[in-house]
């Protein structure tokens, strides 16, 4: 069929956009048939055998909801799920007691951030600037710029650690009234979190400049093993300093429900009435994007959170995942020390959460993939969860070789 016979395509003017590179990493890994291959690319938890892990608590919940129906959920999502998630994330906070929290079920963390951005527009909040860390999760910039926000990057990372000085200086020079995307814990991709003292200074600057915090909370419980501990920064901003905020929550990692898209967007408002109005705004923006959210994963999560015996198991599962990851950090570090790999690798054990920035070069990354079939993000980010006792030595040796052979 000769396309010149027909009127030209209406899509001809659309320009080619390179897809998000991390998805190609997974694709290439899956296509690779080498038995030694190692996937430290995408941010999904793997067990000690390198396999996806269905959490025991999730298995228990799935038994309970096995015969659930498929009727439309309300636009705001499953109420039980929303309420239990809010109780979990805002446990003990004044904002919860005072009923100042608006919530809406979302398509995981991405969907939560989207709804937050759309709702802030619909609410005529006046916010036009969004500040993200550099580096940050690969999707923050696209997500907010697509909604029409002006996105600015604040320097965040240097030499294996959080570059607090540069970050706070950039924050001080940034426009007042901006929304600031904060990683509640387990910063993606660097694994470098502010200390409590540093959080306090960040909060002080943001208070002075009437900035609006958006807490991207994809790792509550996954980071330290305890949700309450991981939520410290939220408590400090919202409870102690009385900030209004958005807290965007995901159960992708903490319950291993990745593909089921389980999340909640919340707004903490200064009054209960305003929180109610924000609920109606969230309902409005959800209706025109997806109408109602998917129920399956929310049902599972609600059952986990709301069934004491299963919630107890979940607390154990969080410790299982977080401690295995921490253990792998230590093992990788120990191996590199043993190999006397050139450089300082202590950042591997100082960083926290699923990810770490190794700090190696693009050429070294390519070398690792070509020679050793090791797959990682082109930013030098590795997912520690992809390491286990069977591959950590291999990975350490590969890394050692790359560092020595290639610049």
């Amino acid at each position, binding site marked *: 069929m000769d396309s010149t016979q*027909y009127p030209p*395509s*209406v*899509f001809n003017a659309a320009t080619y956009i390179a897809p998000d590179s991390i998805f190609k990493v997974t694709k290439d890994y899956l296509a690779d048939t080498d038995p030694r291959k190692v996937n430290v690319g995408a941010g999904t938890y793997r067990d000690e055998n390198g396999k996806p892990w269905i959490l025991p608590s999730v298995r228990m919940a799935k038994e309970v909801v096995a015969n659930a129906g498929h009727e439309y959920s309300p636009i705001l999502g499953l109420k039980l799920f929303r309420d239990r998630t809010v109780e979990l994330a805002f446990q003990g906070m004044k904002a919860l007691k005072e009923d100042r929290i608006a919530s809406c079920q979302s398509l995981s963390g*991405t969907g939560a951030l989207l709804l937050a951005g759309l709702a802030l527009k619909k609410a005529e909040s*006046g916010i036009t600037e969004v500040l993200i860390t550099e580096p940050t999760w690969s999707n923050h910039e696209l997500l907010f710029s697509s909604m029409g926000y002006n996105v600015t990057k604040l320097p965040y990372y240097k030499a294996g650690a959080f570059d607090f000085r540069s970050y706070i200086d950039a924050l001080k020079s940034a426009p007042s009234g901006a929304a600031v995307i904060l990683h509640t814990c387990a910063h993606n991709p660097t694994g470098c979190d502010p200390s409590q003292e540093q959080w306090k200074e960040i909060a002080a600057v943001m208070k002075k400049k009437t900035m609006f915090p958006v807490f991207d909370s994809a790792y509550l419980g996954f980071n330290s093993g305890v949700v309450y501990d991981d939520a410290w920064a939220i408590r400090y901003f919202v409870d102690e300093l009385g900030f209004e905020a958005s807290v965007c929550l995901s159960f992708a990692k903490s319950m291993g429900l990745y593909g089921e*898209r389980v999340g909640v967007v919340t707004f903490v408002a200064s009054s209960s009435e305003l929180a109610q109005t924000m609920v109606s705004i969230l*309902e409005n923006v959800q209706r*025109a994007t997806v109408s109602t959210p998917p*129920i399956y994963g929310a049902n599972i999560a609600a059952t986990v959170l709301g069934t004491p015996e299963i919630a107890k198991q979940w607390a154990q599962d969080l410790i299982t995942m977080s401690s295995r990851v921490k253990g792998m950090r230590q093992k990788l570090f120990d191996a590199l020390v043993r190999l006397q790999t050139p450089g300082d690798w202590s950042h591997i054990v100082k960083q926290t959460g699923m990810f770490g920035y190794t700090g190696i070069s693009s050429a070294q990354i390519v070398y690792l993939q070509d020679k050793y079939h090791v797959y990682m993000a082109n930013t030098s980010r590795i997912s520690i969860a992809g390491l286990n006792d069977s591959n950590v030595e291999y990975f350490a040796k590969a890394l050692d070789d790359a560092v020595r052979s290639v610049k």
Partner: protein
Amino acid sequence: MTSIFSSLPIAHEDDAFGLIRLAKADTHPSKTSLNAGVYRDEEGNPWVLPVVKEVKNILHADPTVNHEYLPIRGNARFLTGARKLVLGAAEALNPAVVSIQTVAGTGANHMAAILLVHALQPKSVWFSNPTWLNHASIWEKADKNINQKWYPYYNPADRRFDFRGMVKTLEEESQPGDVVVLHACAHNPTGLDPTPDQWKAIADLCIRLKLFPLFDSAYQGFASGDLERDSWAIKHFLGEDGLELGIAQSFSKNFGLYAERVGALHIRTTSADVASNVGILLQQVSRSEFSTPPAYGATIVATVLNDDALFAKWQLDLKTMSSRIAQMRQGLYDELIRLKTPGKWDHILTQIGMFSYIGVTAAQAILLKEQYHIYLLTTGRVALTGLTWENVGYVASSIDAVVRQTATEAIPSYIIT
């Protein structure tokens, strides 16, 4: 401290969902909900399709099932099956058609709107008057500035599809590059579909006027029980070489998987290269909104569409649903005729699908709600799925009563000016 939320306008509750809430709260023994667009069985209960139950059990027992992220584009087996279903086996192999998994039909419509606004910059988007409540909101979110226009569709005088009005308006007022939203079958809310000859004329018109047809396909198989018949219009348009078009496909009704949000968007372009680039644009929209689509529902549909035995069982379930609705249409009609209710009622039999514009006015709909605890939209849209042998007599006699009680309204409220 002033809240950033202080200056917001009050958002209004969605009418359809609002009515659902009211109906739910009504505890009167004769309460009858004829509003929400979901299938109900002969007891008035939600119905999980037997084939869906079977597949859920299979998945539940399968130790290899997990919850990993789907690719951005979605479940590949699901998309293969979805393409074959709506495009036909031959066109499903056409690389000039690109497909992506979406968050049900709403997501597909939403994604189509964003794509088309970006790629076509159409001056106007055309909807049938009336159309599904959410079409306008979806397009408004995609582009505040686009003109929303209405082609005549429902003629209240004879309660028929106003084909001539539709054609005339599009001929006279549309511009090249405009998007025209078409209902593939079982028009929501009227239940009136064009005949095959009328569809042919509409296709010719789109080609001649250089309009971009966007099909909303939410009832394939659900409407008539026949998957081919319900996709006839789409397949006719696909048969027009070189005609670019879009299909927003939902599996909410025909699989009863409403809350699992299973859908797909298909865009037919002029070449594989163009389709490939459009695919990347679509993936970018997904990535910027929800990253990857929900897995569970798509897995169920994929399992059925790719297995002959399960597919055959699904077709039986479609027959169950579509024939129960057809019986209810007949039952309601027969009762109204028996009661000699003033007016003409044969449109109830010629309309198709879940919904009917049965011809009650807004005032009559309100009376039905307030005096008889029967809930339908004030536009007069009735969800026939709410009818059972047990309540059809009560509904008919209530309609009979309010029709006799009220004077005829000059201009029914469902006309959007």
